[in-house]
């Protein structure tokens, strides 16, 4: 597991554990931000691991 994956896994676990403390509006707002950021970081991380593709078709101009 590369370091970035390890950090993302740890962050995911941490967010899961902290959800039980969602008792105030401030904590809820931080949790919402953390979850949104985590989702984006995970998606970017996964996208970066996709294979390079040498077979994409050319883009077509618009009419």
């Amino acid at each position, binding site marked *: 597991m590369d370091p970035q994956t390890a950090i993302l896994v740890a962050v995911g676990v*941490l967010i899961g554990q902290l959800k039980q403390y969602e008792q105030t509006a401030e904590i809820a707002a931080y949790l919402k931000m953390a979850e949104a950021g985590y989702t*984006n970081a995970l998606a970017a991380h996964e996208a970066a691991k996709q294979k390079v593709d040498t077979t994409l078709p050319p883009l077509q101009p618009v009419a």
Partner: protein
Amino acid sequence: MVQLRYQQVRLLLLTTLALIVSTAACSHQYTKTNLPAGAINSNDAQFYDDVATLRGFVAGATQNQDVPAQAKPYVNKAVTSANAAYDAWKAYHSAGANDSTALTAALVQLAGDISSLISAAPGVPYDAKTQAAIVKYQQKGAH
């Protein structure tokens, strides 16, 4: 389980946010351990990422029904540049990812054409990654 106090939870959440931000900031740094399959080296992977990001924006613009008619020439110029940049990356990749001169020039052209497109059609959405790639190659073009 240990019960945490409010300030401890707050501190942990702020730390979590900082970790996410730092992880996201490093997401475009390719090393030997996180190369995409098929990439020759980290430069090859990074150029592919940049081409795919900018090409993805242009592909989205061709499908966007909100692009005004007067902006279509800008879309088509960006389409031509995106296809040229992808072809330049394929040539760079198939030649062993050594000389990036032509590929960089193609990406500078594409970034400039996308910037013109965004100016002509301000409603076309783009994300932070696209914006970063545009800025990166516009700066290269300015040097």
